[in-house]
C-alpha cells in the first residue's frame, strides 16, 4: 500500500488582517485559521489516490499548537494520521528553514514514504517555495503544477501545464509533487467525518527536541532572509489631479505614467511624443 505524506499549512482566514499601527505588525492573532486552500487540493489529490489504489495518507504541518485544527480537518476529509511539529524556536522561519524542519520530521517519523504532496502556494506568503525546497532537502525528484498523476508500481507519471507547455514526466518513488490549483477540487467535509476526527483521532505532536533538532542545527539552518519592514500597500496611494485641455492632459498623463502602463501591458509607450517623421 502506498505511503503518502501531504504537507499542509494553517493560514489566517481573512485576506485583510487588522494592522497594528503601534507595533507596525499584522494582528495575525486575530484571524481564525484554516487549511491553506492550495494544500486542500494536495490533500484531495492524496485522497483520490487512496480511493483508487489504496494508500496510507499522513498529513504533516508545522505551526503553533492551534495548527492541530488543520490536521483534524484533514482527518475528517479522510486522512489516516496527522503529525504536528511545533516549537517556539520554529517561529518566524522562512521557507529555507521550514523545508529543513519538515524534512527532519519526515526522515525521523515517516521515513518509508513513497509520495509527498504539497500545495502550489500559500494564501499568506504565496512564495510557492517550500515544496521545491523540501524536495532538495530530501534529495528526491520533484514536479510542480501536477494536473494528473498515474501510478504503476513505483513509477509515477505526472502531467502538468508549465508556461503554456503540457509536459508528461516520469519518475520513480520517492518523489514530491506540488499540485495545480485548477484540478483536484477539494471535497466538502462530512459532519460524520468531523465527529470521527475528534472521537478516534490519530495525531502526534513533536517539538524540536523530540525530532532531535539541536539549537546548533536551528542556528545553522535558520532563515536566510530577513523581513525589515512590512506595510500596508494601500498606504502608498497618492491622489494626483490632472486638469487642462484634453490633448495637454493626455500628453502629461502618458509622459508621467507610461512606465507603469508599459510594464503592465508588455508593450512600450514612448515617453515623449515622437518627433515628426
Amino acid at each position, binding site marked *: 500500500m502506498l505511503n503518502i505524506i501531504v504537507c499542509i499549512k494553517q493560514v489566517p482566514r481573512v485576506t485583510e488582517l487588522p494592522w497594528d499601527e503601534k507595533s507596525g505588525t499584522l494582528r495575525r492573532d486575530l484571524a481564525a485559521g*484554516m487549511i491553506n486552500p492550495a494544500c486542500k487540493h494536495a490533500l484531495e489529490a492524496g485522497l483520490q489516490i487512496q480511493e483508487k489504489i489504496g494508500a496510507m495518507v499522513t498529513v504533516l504541518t508545522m505551526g503553533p499548537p492551534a495548527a492541530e485544527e488543520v490536521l483534524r480537518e484533514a482527518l475528517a476529509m479522510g486522512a489516516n494520521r496527522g503529525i504536528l511539529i511545533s516549537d517556539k524556536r520554529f517561529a518566524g522561519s522562512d521557507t529555507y528553514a521550514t523545508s529543513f524542519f519538515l524534512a527532519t520530521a519526515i526522515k525521523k517519523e515517516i521515513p518509508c514514504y513513497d509520495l509527498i504532496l504539497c500545495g502550489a502556494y500559500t494564501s499568506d506568503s504565496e512564495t510557492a517555495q517550500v515544496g521545491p525546497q523540501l524536495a532538495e532537502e530530501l534529495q528526491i525528484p520533484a514536479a510542480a503544477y501536477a494536473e494528473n498523476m498515474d501510478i504503476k508500481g513505483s513509477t509515477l507519471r505526472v502531467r502538468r501545464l508549465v508556461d503554456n507547455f503540457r509536459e508528461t514526466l516520469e519518475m520513480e518513488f520517492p518523489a514530491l509533487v506540488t499540485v495545480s490549483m485548477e484540478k483536484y477540487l477539494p471535497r466538502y467535509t462530512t459532519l*460524520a467525518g468531523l465527529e470521527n476526527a475528534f472521537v478516534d483521532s490519530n495525531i502526534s505532536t513533536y517539538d524540536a527536541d523530540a525530532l532531535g533538532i539541536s539549537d546548533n542545527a536551528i542556528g545553522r539552518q535558520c532563515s536566510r532572509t530577513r523581513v525589515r519592514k512590512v506595510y500596508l500597500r494601500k498606504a502608498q496611494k497618492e491622489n494626483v489631479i490632472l486638469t487642462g485641455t484634453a490633448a495637454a492632459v493626455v500628453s502629461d498623463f502618458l509622459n508621467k505614467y507610461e512606465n507603469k502602463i508599459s510594464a503592465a501591458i508588455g508593450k512600450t509607450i514612448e515617453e515623449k511624443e515622437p518627433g515628426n517623421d
Partner: protein
Amino acid sequence: MQYNPCMKHKLIRNSVRHFAETELEPVAAQIDRNATFPRNIIEKMRPLNYFGLQVPKKYGGADLDSISAAIVVEEISRVCAAVGLCVTVHNGVAIYPLLKFATQEQKETYLPKLASGEVLGAFSLTEANAGSDSGSVETTAVKNGNKYILNGTKIFVTNGGVCDLALIFALTGSGQKHPLSSVFIVESNYPGFLRGELEDLCGMRANPVSSLFFEDCPVPEGNLLGKSGEGMKIGLATLDNGRIGIAAQALGIAQGALEAAVKYAKERQQFKKPIASLQTIQNYIADMATEQTAARLLLYHACSLKDQGAPFGCEASMAKLYCSSVAAKTTSLAVQIHGGYGYSKEYNVERYFRDAKVTEIYEGTSEIQRMVIARSVLSQLIL
C-alpha cells in the same frame, strides 16, 4: 456559563459555512425571488450528513451533540434561511420523534433513508382551526382492520411540497376530558395523500410550504408512532426540540444581518466619512452584537441541558422566544443601516428582514412561548 468554542465546534462551523458560501450564496437571492426549491443543492448536502445530524452512526447519521447540530442550522440559515428551515424541520421535528418514540422496526425502516436525505421529512400538526390551540385538531384516523384511515387537511406544512414522509397528528378517539390524538408516520406515496399548492409567502420563499390533504388515506397500523392517544405527549416533546432548531435558524439570520450591516457601515461614506463612525450607527451595532451573543449563549445553554438528559423545555422556549425576537430586531436595524439600498432587492438585507419575521410565529408563536415559560416558572416550588 462559559462559552469557548472548542475546536470541534469551530471546525463544524467553518466547514458548513464554506459549503453554504460556495453553494448556496450564489443562488440564495434568486431562489427566494422565484420561490424555487434548490433540489440540486439538497442533493449535494446529502452525503455530508446534513440530513442526519443527530442520528446514530449505525443508521448513517453524524451523531452530533446538540450544539454542533445547532451550529449547522445557524450556518446554513446565515446564507439561506429557507434551506436552513428545510434542514432543521427534517432533523428537529421529523427525525427527532422517531429517535425518541419509534419501535426498533420503525427506526430500521425509516432512519437510514431519512439520515441520508433520500427521504425528506415533515411534521404537520397545524390546521385551519388549530394553530396555537393544537388541541383543536380535526383530522381523524379511524381504525379499520389493520389500517388507520386518515381524513383531514393540514396547512402551512414546511417541506410539504417535497416531503416523502410526514408525521401527522390525528384524532383517534375521545378521552374523558380531551379528545385523544395520535401520531402517524405517513409516506407520501400512500393513496389519498395529496399535496396542495405551494404557499406564496413573505419570506422563506424557497421552502416548499404547502397544505397536505388526506382523503381516506390508509396508513398501516405499524406506522402508529408510540401508543394510541400519546399524540399530545409526543407533540409537546417534539416541539421542545423543534424550538432549539428554530432558535438556531433565527440566530443564523441575525448573524448574516449583523455582518452585512457592519460591512456596509464601513464602506458607505456620508458627510465625508464612513457611517460606522457615527454614534447612532455604533449604538445600533453595539445592541445587535450584544443581543446576538446573549441569544447564542441562551441557545447553547438549552442545547447542553438537552444533551445532559435534563429537562430543557423551558430553556428551549426561552431560546426560541429570544433568538427570534433578536432576529426580527437585528434584521430591521440592518435594513435601516443600509438606508434606501436596504429596501432594494439589490442587497440581501431585505430578504433577511422578511425571513426573520416568521421565526416569531411558527413552531409556537412568541405568545405561546411566553405561556410555556410562565407556566414553567410559576410551577416551580422554589425559584
